[in-house]
C-alpha cells in the first residue's frame, strides 16, 4: 500500500499570536514551530498501517518554507520512508494548498492520502477534502477509527452529540484524522540518525493564486474586566442572580 501523509508546519499551540506589521498575517518573531497537532494522528495512522501491511511505503509531504525540512525529517525519524518538500515562502489558502498538494500527489502512487482534520493555525478543515476532490478520490473527514481491508477503508467518523458514523470508502481515498484515532509515537533515536541521511525530494511548489484574500488580521475583541462574585459555596446563589438579572443568559 502506498500511503501519503500531508503534514503542516504550524506555530506551536502555546505560542502567543499577534498581528504583524502588514496587518494581514501574524508576527513570526519569537514563534516556534512544530507539526500541526492533528497531523500527528495522520502520521501515526500511516505508520501503523505500513507495519500491518509489509511492503507498504509511507511518504510525508509538506508545503511550506525551506525550514520545514526539519519537520519533514521528524516525520521520517518517526517512521515515514520518504519526504517531499514543496517549497513556498507565502501563506496560501485551503484551495491553493490543496492544488499544490494534489499536483504533486498525482505524480506519486497513492492508495491512501492522510491529513489532520484541521490545522491549528488556519483552521479551515478544508485542505483534505479539497485535495481529494482535485484527485478525484473519495474522502472521509474527522476520522476516529480506521481499518483497511480488500481495497476498502472502514472508517468511523465523529459527528455531533457523541455519535459516530461508520463508512466504507473505496481506495484510493483521502482521510482526515481526529484525536482518538490512535496515540502518536515519538521518533526513535535510530530513526533520528537515519532521517539525517535521508535525501528529501525538494523543489519549488506549484501553487495557484489565493481565492480567499485576507484583508486584515486583528487580535480578538478584548473582554471587559470581570468580577469575583465571592468565595466558596455561599457565592453560588449570588452568581445565579447575576447571570439572570445582569448578564441575562438564563
Amino acid at each position, binding site marked *: 500500500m502506498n500511503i501519503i501523509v500531508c503534514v503542516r508546519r504550524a506555530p506551536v*499551540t*502555546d505560542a502567543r*499570536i*499577534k*498581528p504583524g506589521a502588514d496587518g494581514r498575517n*501574524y508576527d513570526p518573531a519569537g514563534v516556534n514551530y512544530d507539526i500541526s*497537532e*492533528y497531523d500527528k494522528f495522520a502520521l501515526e495512522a500511516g505508520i501503523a498501517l505500513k507495519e500491518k501491511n509489509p511492503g507498504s511505503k509511507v511518504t510525508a509531504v509538506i508545503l511550506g518554507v525551506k525550514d520545514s525540512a526539519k519537520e519533514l525529517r521528524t516525520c521520517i525519524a518517526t517512521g515515514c520512508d520518504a519526504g517531499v518538500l514543496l517549497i513556498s515562502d507565502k501563506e496560501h489558502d*485551503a*484551495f491553493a494548498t490543496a492544488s499544490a498538494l494534489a499536483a504533486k500527489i498525482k505524480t506519486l502512487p497513492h492508495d491512501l492520502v492522510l491529513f489532520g482534520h484541521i490545522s*491549528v*493555525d488556519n*483552521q*479551515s*478543515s*478544508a485542505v*483534505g*477534502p*479539497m485535495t481529494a*476532490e*482535485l484527485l478525484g478520490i473519495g*474522502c472521509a*473527514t*474527522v476520522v476516529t477509527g480506521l481499518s483497511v481491508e480488500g481495497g476498502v477503508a472502514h472508517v468511523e467518523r*465523529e*459527528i*455531533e*452529540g*457523541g*455519535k*459516530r*458514523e*461508520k*463508512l*466504507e470508502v473505496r481506495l484510493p*481515498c483521502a482521510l482526515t484524522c481526529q*484525536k482518538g484515532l490512535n496515540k502518536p509515537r515519538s521518533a526513535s533515536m535510530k530513526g533520528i540518525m537515519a532521517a539525517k541521511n535521508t535525501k528529501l525530494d525538494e523543489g519549488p511548489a506549484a501553487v495557484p493564486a489565493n*481565492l*480567499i*484574500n*485576507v*484583508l*486584515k*488580521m*486583528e487580535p*480578538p475583541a478584548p*473582554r471587559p474586566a*470581570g468580577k*469575583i462574585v465571592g*468565595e466558596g*459555596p455561599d*457565592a*453560588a446563589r449570588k*452568581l*445565579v*442572580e447575576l447571570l*439572570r438579572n445582569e*448578564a441575562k*443568559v*438564563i
Partner: protein
Amino acid sequence: MSNVLVFVEAKDGKASKAGLQALGAGAALAASLGGKCIALLAGNGLDAEAATLGAYGASRTLLASGEAFSKHSPDAMARLIANQAQAQGAAVVLASATSVGKDCMPRAAAMMKCGLASDIVELRAEGGKPVAVRPVFAGKARVTVQASGALFATLRPNVFATPARGGGSAPVEAVKVAFSLADLKAVVKEIVSGAAGKLDVAEAEIVCSGGRGMKDPAGEGKQNWANLEKLAATIGAAVGASRAVVDAGWRPHGEQVGQTGKTVSPKLYIAVAISGAIQHLAGMSGSKVIVAVNKDAQAPIFKVADYGIVGSAEDVLPALIEAFAAALKG
C-alpha cells in the same frame, strides 16, 4: 447577479437550528447585495418543511430527494451544492460549520474552483461585495476575508441569530442531481449512537467544562464529575473538558474545548477547576458570558471570566446545582 444559495441542513425531518441561522444570515446578506436568497434542502420526507423556509427569509426553496440523500453522503451533497451554485449563478454559497457542512462544502467549493471561508462568525457586504470574518488559531486572532470569485462559507453554529418565523412564503422546486448509489465513493453504513440526547459542546448554548482540578473520575473526583453532569442536566448544558482531562483519559476527546479540541461560542461557558492554559482560553473566549470556578484566585481563567467564584469543585458544584435549580423553578 448576487444570489445567495444557502444549504439548510436538515435533522430528524426538520431544518436544523444551525441551518436556519445560516438561512437568516444569507437572507440578510442577499438583501444588502440586492440579490435573492435561495434555500437548498436535501433529504427525504422534507416536503412540508421545505414549504416553511419562505417564512425564514428564502425567496425560493430547492428540494433534492432520492436514495442518494437517504443518509449523509458527502459525495452526493457536494455534487448537489456545486450543481446548484452554478445553476443559480450564486455569488455566495453558505452552509453550517457542522459535521455535515464541514464535510461537503470544501468538496463543493473545489468542484467549482472557488475559495472557502470556514467557520465564519460575521458576514456582511462591503462596497457591494461579501466580506466574512473568521477566527484563526482558535480565536487568538481573527481575519477579515474576501473571495476572488464566488464566496463559499460555513457559519459557526450559535453565532448568527436564529431567525424568527415571519409571514413570508416561497415556492418549492424539486431539483435533481445526476447521481446513483454506484457513483458513491464513500458510503455510510451505520450511525452509532453515543449517550442518548447528548448535547455537543460546539452546538450547545451552555457549556460546563471540567479541568484537572476536578480529579480522577475513577477515584476521588467521582462525585465532582457526577455533579458537573448534574449541573449540565439542570441547565441544559453540554459537558466539556480541558485537554489535560482528555489526555488523562477521564473524558472522551469529543468533549475537549480549546485550540487542539473544539472552539466554542456558547452564550454561557462555565469553567470548573480549569486553570486556563492559553490553548483553552483561545477555544472558549468567543463565549458571550464566562463563569470560572477555581480554588486558585490567581488562575489565568479569572482574567477572561466575567464572573468568578474562588472555591473548589467539591465545595461549589453542589451549591451551584441547588442555586440554578431553585432559580429555574421559580
